[in-house]
């Protein structure tokens, strides 16, 4: 066994670090560290920076703009990106839709949609969940009926992340009621500027606007926007979900968050000593650090299996459960570290150009909202309970 990276991999790691050191504006890194979203313009500008470097879509095939990196190199890139607190490209188009198009889309669809992702023409969002269809996705009711060269779509999607910025949505729609529920679902690309599409904000418990409800009333979608075959969308949707989960170990983001937590706790006083010297708090931090070291190796073991030709299957469910629990725990520790200063609710202090007096330690205003916001990690992307069901079934065969 050898846990070290090869010299080439180490060199690659340095190349990635150097890129971020030179190209990532510190103000953006700060925003990411504090869990505060970027504006649409900032996000697009950063994605353009990555595109210029050729690193926007490492996992795509080289002929479409990918880098041809090995699984280990991709892992290193993800890790270093998180450690640098670099904004991540919005996953819906690049990481979710693109693999589906590459595998199931027509040549024409690939040639049309993939370059538009790269040059920033389209911002994609994911239209899977509905009020009655969350964990039980196949219960979805949004309907598409063929009418000449169009589908006519009626229904509602919900929890649509950043739908307020998107001009395109890939949606699962029902096209057939006969047979198994999974067999009547189609995968449709819908232009959100079409008549009949309405986006309404959902405010989350941290007071933020990140998710939306989307209503479709007689929305006409050209049949050319159907991916693959009609009624076969479930297969494509499930293929996409495995992509969603593998990135959720969040080793890099937890590592960065833990480092920040320690610097925060070192500056907080408890009983005349730094909080980091408080035995109970120190034990909590140590536990998180140990979990993280363990998770890092667990994640690498999955990567190594993939590099050796295996496919990430139910193992990605393990990474998702552990990774999200750990990230949540670190955010809970940051809240704990603030003591009484976890209470003030000052969203305006997180805005650029805020020149009021902060309350408590620097960046305190971000901590409780981020803790609240990150409760989502164990709910979306297949809830952690659903991941455990998958593990029970696929690995344990129970």
């Amino acid at each position, binding site marked *: 066994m050898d846990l070290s990276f090869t010299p080439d991999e180490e060199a690659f790691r340095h190349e990635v670090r150097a890129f971020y050191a030179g190209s990532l504006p510190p103000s953006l890194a700060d925003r990411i560290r504090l869990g505060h979203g970027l504006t649409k313009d900032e996000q697009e500008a950063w994605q353009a920076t990555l595109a210029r470097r050729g690193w926007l879509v490492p996992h795509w095939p080289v002929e479409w703009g990918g880098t041809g990196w090995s699984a280990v190199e991709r892992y290193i890139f993800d890790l270093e990106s998180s450690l640098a607190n670099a904004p991540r490209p919005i996953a819906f188009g690049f990481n979710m839709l693109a693999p589906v198009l590459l595998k199931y889309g027509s040549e024409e669809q690939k040639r049309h949609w993939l370059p538009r992702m790269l040059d920033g023409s389209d911002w994609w969002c994911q239209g899977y969940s509905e009020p009655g269809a*969350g*964990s039980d996705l196949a219960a979805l009711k949004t309907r598409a009926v063929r009418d000449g060269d169009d589908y006519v779509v009626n229904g509602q999607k919900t929890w649509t992340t950043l739908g307020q910025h998107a001009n395109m949505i890939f949606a699962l729609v029902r096209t057939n009621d006969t047979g198994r529920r999974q067999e009547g679902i189609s995968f449709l690309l819908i232009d959100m500027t079409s008549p009949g599409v309405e986006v309404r904000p959902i405010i989350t418990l941290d007071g933020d606007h990140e998710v939306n409800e989307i209503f479709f009333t007689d929305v006409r979608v050209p049949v050319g926007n159907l991916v693959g075959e009609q009624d076969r969308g479930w297969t494509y949707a499930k293929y996409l979900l495995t992509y969603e989960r593998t990135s959720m170990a969040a080793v890099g983001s937890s590592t960065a968050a833990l480092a920040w937590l320690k610097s925060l706790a070192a500056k907080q006083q408890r009983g005349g000593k730094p909080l980091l010297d408080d035995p109970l708090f120190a034990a909590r931090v140590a536990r998180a650090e140990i979990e993280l070291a363990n998770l890092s190796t667990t994640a690498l073991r999955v990567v190594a299996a993939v590099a050796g030709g295996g496919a990430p299957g139910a193992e990605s469910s393990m990474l998702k459960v552990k990774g999200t629990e750990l990230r949540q725990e670190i955010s*809970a520790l940051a*809240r*704990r570290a603030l*003591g009484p200063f976890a209470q003030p609710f000052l969203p305006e202090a997180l805005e650029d150009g805020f020149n009021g007096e902060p309350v408590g330690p620097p960046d305190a205003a971000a901590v409780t909202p981020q803790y609240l916001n990150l409760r989502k990690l164990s709910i979306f992307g297949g809830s952690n309970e659903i991941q455990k069901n998958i593990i029970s079934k696929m690995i344990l065969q129970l």
Partner: protein
Amino acid sequence: MDFNHTDDRRMLADTLGRFIAGQTDPMARAEAAKTAPGYDPAVWTRFAELGVIGALFGPDDGGFGGGGFDIMVVFEALGAGLVQAPFLSTLLAGRALAAAGGRADEIEALIAGTMVIAFAHQEGGAGYDLDHVATRAERNGNDWVLTGSKSVIADAEGATLLLVSARTSGEVGDRDGVSLFLVPVQASGLDVRGYPCVDGGRAAEVRLDGVTLPATALVGTEGDGTGSIADAVAAGLLALCAEALGAMAVVRDATLDYLRTRMQFGEAIGRNQALQHRMAALLIEIEQARSAVINAAAALDGPGNARERMLSAAKYTIGRTGTLVAEEAIQLHGGIGMTWELPMTHFAKRLMMIDHQLGDEDHHLARYAALSRAA
């Protein structure tokens, strides 16, 4: 042995529960937090008329309650309604004044609901250490001059007076040498900068920049404030724990209801044994927490070390359980549990924030251990 509240307390709980259900809206809490004072003064007056404030004080202080179980009954009802009103401030300030003595007029005004006094003790660098007082009071002829700052002080904007702790001798962290002063909010040199809190309500950063007060502003005996502060905080700890019990019951019921009604995979999600066990575990923890609060209420009027130990035991238990209940409730609600629109999430946030008031889980666990060694 009798685990029932007395008839008087049961009546108080009933009256209060009915009033809260009819007059206060849990969702109004977040809205009210946007502007000072952060609560509805008319509702506060009604609480006073109902005698609820009087129930927090003993007959010697002009009230008709004041025992541990009186505080428990009142605050549990407040928690169940997510009421935003200066109850905790009033309890803390009133109890400290009562312990220090000689302030019957102010306590009477508190009970009548005509005056709010904010308890301005906590400081920025203190963590949860009650002895950490860096604010100083110095004599200038017959006057006192106060300089320093206080952090996250609830209800300071709407108050008539602030009860400020300041050091008249000794060093930061010393038990002795802390005195209490009543400071009018309009005193020159006093700066109160208010803001909303995550769980509704408002607090403020308070700065005292050479605030000059007459000799009569000193409460009780010079240098003797620590005991009064401890007395106030003891009652405050019990109050927070009882409030959490009320909030936990609401969150529990809402989650149970959701497990029974939310359909996925053709059945209520509560049909999944995995979720049944999660809910069963919560129920056990909540009952344990109730016992902890009963222990603390029974100990409040008893001797020092045992009282403080039971209070820390309760606050530790509530800190841990409250957070657990809040996090589990959100998780079991799925996406809906992440929304502002759902009342449950506001109760959950209140539970989380109770762990940041008067000492968190770790603080009280360590304190319990230290008190046990000293016993």
